[in-house]
């Protein structure tokens, strides 16, 4: 395993080299068209980022050069002076020196300051003439020794990683089956080979999950801006503290909680924190403190949103619950504090007296709760009246998000993993034929057996009755599944949609029913069973009339 520091250095290198390439390109554009604003802005932005990154990594030598060049480009950009004259060779050599320094970092060598360049840059900034000493020669030498380099990092669309993870999931399922079979056979060679296969599959799964991990910071770092905007709209003074940006979590989990986190932060500023006057009156510092923190806890990641605001008024929540008819006055008064907090996660429950633009848009904490539930995570609240509130999100580090096709059968939603879905067709019943008691559909010149899913899922295990076409009226929505090259059409009541789902295992004691790969919670909080196509196919073969 690479150390965190090494990983960061590689990330820095990749970005810096890319920036260097882009700057060189923009510089040659500027050489031809000194007034090109797009190129000027780009160079300015790249230098600024490079400076920030280099300083964050402790490469101050790079930072110093980039900072001075940024200043000069800032002047050019604001039209204080043109990109012309003696400054041009200085800037060019500056870019070259930066490139050289970046390569030095890549080679893991110590950086040295380039004093003549820095002095020249300072002179240009001050509007003085730089001291040019055979600069062109230095440049050409640099050019001659320059190597073409490709970055050590590749960008991968998350979809490809999702696919990889799905495949690994399938592999794990098959591995378990092979392991069981090998134990049944009992052959020692087979057992040792399957044990090896099993370890490989584990390593592969771990590696793929690891490749999907990103720092929580990728999300957290968007919040200073959000907090600033929300605080100014709410006319509150807020200081945001962020910690634990390095904590690693699956990128899709981060994606799913983005809205929740946004909601909780808005909530904390809108409802949690008081205005400066209120705070001063209550004897608190005028500026409200908001903390976003992440930490690991065994296999989980804890994300906390803490404010030092007014806290949750338990009595008010009780009163609200009674007013809304959620509880009787008697029942409400008996609730413990923790139970009162759970009321906040009920749909449509908001204690905010006035709806503000930022935090009261009818979306309540129930939506946050649902999102966390769908990940198999937990959401907790702690609060002290007058002292503040902390929301804690307990999240799994890694999950398998699977694409699935949602459909309805007898009024309930079901999901079928896309992995096993071949195609989806809608056929008029006269396009279906009965052959030997089984319905056959001709789809793309292939004859595919078709069964009504409702019949297949009936409670008894007897052979299916011979298919009766007269039962089918009108267009039939058919999902064609494919497992091990065997296709099977399932007639369902209605297609719903395609959606990425997180599958939770079915809890005991119902986990012995292998027809279901698990359950998922829909955005509506509805429980949706996820069908297991291999088991369905086996069931169909066993019950075929």
């Amino acid at each position: 395993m690479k150390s965190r520091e090494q990983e960061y250095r590689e990330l820095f290198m990749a970005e810096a080299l890319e920036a260097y390439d882009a700057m060189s390109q923009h510089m040659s554009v500027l050489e031809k068209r000194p007034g090109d604003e797009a190129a000027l802005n780009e160079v300015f932005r790249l230098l600024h980022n490079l400076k920030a990154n280099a300083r964050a990594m402790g490469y101050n030598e790079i930072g110093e050069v980039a900072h001075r060049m940024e200043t000069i480009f800032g002047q050019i950009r604001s039209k204080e002076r043109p990109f012309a004259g003696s400054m041009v060779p200085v800037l060019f050599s500056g870019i070259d020196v930066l490139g050289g320094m970046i390569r030095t970092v890549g080679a893991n060598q110590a950086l040295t300051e380039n004093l003549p360049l820095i002095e020249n840059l300072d002179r240009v900034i001050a509007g003085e003439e730089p001291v040019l000493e055979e600069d062109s020669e230095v440049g050409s030498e640099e050019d001659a020794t320059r190597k073409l380099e490709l970055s050590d990092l590749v960008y991968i669309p998350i979809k490809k990683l999702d696919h990889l993870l799905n495949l690994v999931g399938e592999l794990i399922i098959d591995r378990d089956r092979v392991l069981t079979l090998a134990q049944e056979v009992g052959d020692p060679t087979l057992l040792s080979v399957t044990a090896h296969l099993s370890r490989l599959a584990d390593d592969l799964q771990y590696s793929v999950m690891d490749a999907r991990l990103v720092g929580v910071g990728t999300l957290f770092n968007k919040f200073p801006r959000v907090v600033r905007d929300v605080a100014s709209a709410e006319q509150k003074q807020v200081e945001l503290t962020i910690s634990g940006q390095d904590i690693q979590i699956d990128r899709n989990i981060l994606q799913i909680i983005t809205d929740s986190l946004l909601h909780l932060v808005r909530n904390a500023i809108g409802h949690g924190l008081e205005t400066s006057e209120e705070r001063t009156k209550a004897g608190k510092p005028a500026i409200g403190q908001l903390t976003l923190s992440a930490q690991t806890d065994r296999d989980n990641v804890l994300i906390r949103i803490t404010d030092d605001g007014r806290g949750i008024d338990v009595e008010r929540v009780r009163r609200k619950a009674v007013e809304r008819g959620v509880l009787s006055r008697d029942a409400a008064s008996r609730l413990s504090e923790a139970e009162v907090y759970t009321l906040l996660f009920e749909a449509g429950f908001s204690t905010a007296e006035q709806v503000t633009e930022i935090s009261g848009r009818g979306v309540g904490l129930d939506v946050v709760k649902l999102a966390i539930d769908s990940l198999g995570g937990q959401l907790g609240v702690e609060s002290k009246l007058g002292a503040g509130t902390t929301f804690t999100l307990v999240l799994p580090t890694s999950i398998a998000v699977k694409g699935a096709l949602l459909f309805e059968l007898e009024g309930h939603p079901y999901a079928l993993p896309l992995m096993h879905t071949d195609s989806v067709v809608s056929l008029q019943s006269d396009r279906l034929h009965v052959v030997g008691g089984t319905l056959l559909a001709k789809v793309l010149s292939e004859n595919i057996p078709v069964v009504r899913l409702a019949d297949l899922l009936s409670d008894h295990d007897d052979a299916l009755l011979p298919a009766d076409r007269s039962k089918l009226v009108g267009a039939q929505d058919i999902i064609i599944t494919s497992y091990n090259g065997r296709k099977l059409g399932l007639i369902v009541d209605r297609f719903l949609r395609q959606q990425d789902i997180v599958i939770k295992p079915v809890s005991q004691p119902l986990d012995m029913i292998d027809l279901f790969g698990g359950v998922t919670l829909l955005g509506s909080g509805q429980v949706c069973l996820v069908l297991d196509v291999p088991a369905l196919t086996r069931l169909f073969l066993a019950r075929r009339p």
Partner: protein
Amino acid sequence: MPENQAADKKTFKAEAPVQLIVFRLGGEEYGIRIEQVKEVTLTPEIARMPKTPPFVKGIANLRGDIIAIIDLEERFRLRSTGNGPLTGSTYTMALEAKDYTIGIIVREVPQPLSLPASSIEKTPEFIQDLNVHDKYIEGIARLDNRIIIVLDMLKLLTPEEIMQLKPKATSSAAAERR
């Protein structure tokens, strides 16, 4: 009997009372020790799970936990003539079994009841003839003129017992009874 009751009253203050959650199944009152009950809530929306016998009502989302919901009236054939199938708003008691939580559906709000441990008598022999097999019954509690059958949920909800959920097992069991 009057003597017995007097004895009960004497011990009432001396020993720690047993706390039960009492609910109605069919015409009878049943009790579960309060520590086995995780919570009581309005029955959430239940998703029917195919390939399970009718008394498994399905699965439901209880605060993020997906739990099985079962109907004991149906399980023990306690549906008396006066009681139709469960309709309208019902309540679900979430019970903590050994490794999982399971929901039991009931018609009325279950009530807490505190009574002396000595008022729970060991199961008499004749109970064995009833549908509720005696091994689930911890004892019979008598309180004034009420009779409360105290169930041992941990025994009732062991995976072995739930194995009877398997369609094949149920159908053969049903065949035996016929």
